[in-house]
């Protein structure tokens, strides 16, 4: 079954990325995780994301396109990256979510993927 692991981080986590004293540890933790996922052969896709301030949100209402600076919701935790993994069941997906650095300081949402849309003929 395919699950998306939605990794969230707090402002203080994002800040580590550029902190000269802490950046190595931050990126080190993530590379270790990425390596583990790769070794397990479960990854369907994944990417780290640039911080929330680089986000732009688009909405179309009454035919008008609204473009806004910033992420879609102003919450304490923000989207930091994602993985789509293919594993046997929820418990396995949860175990992988728990291993990620994001679970330690913020949260990881685990959501089952829909089966792929049938291709229109």
């Amino acid at each position, binding site marked *: *079954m395919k*699950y998306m692991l939605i990794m969230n981080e707090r402002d203080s986590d994002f800040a580590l990325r550029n902190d000269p004293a802490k950046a190595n540890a931050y990126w080190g933790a993530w590379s270790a995780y990425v390596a583990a996922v790769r070794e397990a052969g479960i990854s369907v896709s994944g990417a780290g994301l640039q911080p929330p301030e680089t986000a732009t949100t688009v909405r179309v209402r009454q035919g008008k396109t609204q473009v806004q600076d910033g992420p879609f919701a102003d919450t304490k935790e923000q989207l930091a990256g994602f993985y789509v993994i293919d594993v*046997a*069941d*929820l*418990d396995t*997906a*949860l175990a992988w979510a728990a291993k990620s650095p994001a679970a330690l300081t913020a949260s990881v949402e*685990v959501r*089952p993927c829909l*089966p792929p849309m049938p291709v229109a003929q």
Partner: protein
Amino acid sequence: MPAADACGAMNPAYTRAHEVAVESRGRLVAFLCARFGDVALVEDALSDAFVSALRQWPERGIPDRPEAWLLTVARNSLRDGVRRRAVRERMSVQLESAVEPATREGAFPDERLPLLFVCAHPAIDESARAPLMLQIVLGLNAERIAEAFLVKPAAMGQRLSRAKAKIAAAGIPFSIPEERELPNRLEAVLEAIYGAYGLGWDDLETGGGLSGEAIWLARTLTQLMPGAAEAHGLLALMLHSEARRPARTESGVFVPLSEQDTAKWDAAMQAEAEAALASASRTGGPIGPFQLEAAIQSAHASRARTGATPWAGIADLYDALARLRPSLGVLVGRAAAHGSAFGPKAGLGALEETAAIKGRFDYQPYWACRAALQSATGQQASAREACRRAMELTRSIAARRHLEKRFLQE
């Protein structure tokens, strides 16, 4: 063919179908769920199979292996469903390879334990866990469960549907948790069962909510997991509580534990409770909160033999329990025990500690305990206030009457 004949005697085939339904429903559901993963579809398929049985067996005769018959019909129904929905091909292969030998041999493994663990999986909404167990494993209908949990039937139906949909959509596995996870996961199962037992406990007027069902679930759990000390502990706890039910009211008046007529306690049930406690200690595991609670109840029950309640021992047990599980209920019970063992001032001290830890709350036993201890130390005005709060916080007329009589009448 009617279910009963002209003289009103039950058609034997109908009765037999009904018997099989009751005896084996849980095991059939569990077996199919473990291989199909979609609880709602399995329940529907099995319900349809039972309906078919009640229609066909009276006419064609009861099959030699009724469970195998039901399994085959349910399997076919699920298979057709899978074809129509075009999902879960993996699941249907598992289903085929499992059902075939089961229908041939007429026997299949008991998967009720994994099913119980699924119902109490952390990914399942906490308020849905006990209802799921009651419906899936015991076959209670949503209306009955809703009534016990004091929610509208539609709301309970929705809660159950959502939980079953979650099991299927999120792929919650049907398996017994690994060693490392087992204690936590087992605790969730026990909490859910105990939660179901506690429904209607305060309601002294009517029957007993779902206490019989909760006890059945705990008994089944101890049979499926004989090495789980806490499961035996939970069973012992509920049996001791249940044994005292006949003594809890006297002509609609609430009778507190210390004043109950021990002759009214169900001795057979207490014996079964003691046997469960013995089984718990035989497993050799560390003592957990349910065993401690059961030991406290056992100490109370000993009054029937000795004529006195061993309060100092009970206070010790509560101290141990409070270290493991400092819930409001435990802390208040501890305060009451300290009050009875070491005097009302000691009890009030323990109660003050509780308030310091837990802050403001609307917990009825806290106020009842406070009323009793303050009254015993001569603080009559405060005791009356506490009594009024306790009365406000209970739905039971008998309990209110008791409190009023004890603290508000001169």
